[in-house]
């Protein structure tokens, strides 16, 4: 009988936390693999329109972004509240687009240059005037493969 008798006065052993780092590292690697770095700080507010017939952008390295939208609150005093174009980290003008596309193209490998995609992230309430100007510039820059960035609708 004495075999099963509880020993008195024994403290519960501390739970081993040695495997906790492993679990956290697992999470860490998952996040490192499944996410991408934020490359630009947004200076314009963009709320994308919705669409259903969307296709995914497969290769992120081939994609260059053009953001169009009203400036963020802290830039309103300098830039006004009308929609502006943002390339990389700065407010730019329509005529800067050709240079931008050219420099983005140069940064790609030679055989990939033809597959370059320009993604237009344009705010829903922007007027088409500015978008059409951008499209004309892109045509001049021979960046013909474009993608109107949208959210997935129902």
């Amino acid at each position, binding site marked *: 009988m004495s075999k099963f008798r509880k020993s008195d006065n024994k403290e519960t052993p501390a739970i081993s936390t040695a495997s906790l780092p492993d679990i956290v590292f697992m999470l860490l690697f998952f996040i490192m693999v499944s996410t991408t770095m934020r490359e630009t700080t947004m200076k314009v507010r963009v709320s994308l329109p919705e669409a259903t017939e969307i296709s995914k952008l497969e290769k992120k390295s081939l994609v260059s972004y053009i953001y169009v939208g009203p400036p963020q609150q802290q830039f309103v005093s300098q830039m006004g509240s009308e929609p502006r174009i943002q390339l990389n980290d700065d407010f730019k003008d329509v005529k800067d687009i050709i240079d931008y596309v050219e420099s983005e193209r140069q940064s790609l490998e030679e055989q990939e240059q033809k597959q370059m995609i320009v993604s237009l992230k344009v705010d829903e309430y922007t007027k088409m005037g500015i978008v*059409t100007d951008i499209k004309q510039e892109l045509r001049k820059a021979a960046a013909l493969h*474009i993608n109107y960035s949208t959210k997935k609708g129902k």
Partner: protein
Amino acid sequence: MPKKLPEYNASSLADIAFMLLMFFLVVTTMDVDSGLERRLPQWIDPEDIEDTPPIKERNVFVVLVDRNNRLMVEGELTRVEDLKDKTKEFLTNPANDVNLPEKEVKEIPFFGPYEVLTKSSVISLQNDVGTTYGTYIAVQNELLAAINELRDDLSKKKFGKAFNDLNSDQQDAVKEIYPQKISEAEPRKIGGR
């Protein structure tokens, strides 16, 4: 006999890993980029534009969007919800209506001789400078939806599979029957002062 090394305390390793984890959570984004894919036409110098031969009225599907985001399709005020059906009607012309585009019989791989719209038939999308981008995308989306639905229907009927599951030769054949031809004119002021 060597002395047994004392086990080192690993409890702070978790804290370090958590810190790294937080860092990555903050500086990275997870959003997948998706959108409507389009190809722009080649740039042509305005001076070099030659007069293109006129296209018959019935072969052009005119979609106008004005600055108040109203939609006019083939001269009629239309809601965005109805655009898809109208586009499908234009692209198929099931009853061989004289007001809808002409068709011609063409040899298509897998299908044999098949009645398709003539080469000159095109969807023409025009928008005003004041049209909002959201409306423009909604219209583009409906036009693409119409084409994608037609392609899907045809693929299901012929191959028993959705368009996206076909191999590239089959896809090309279906694309030849329902091409994605949307022409965008230069924007101009439509309606209003």
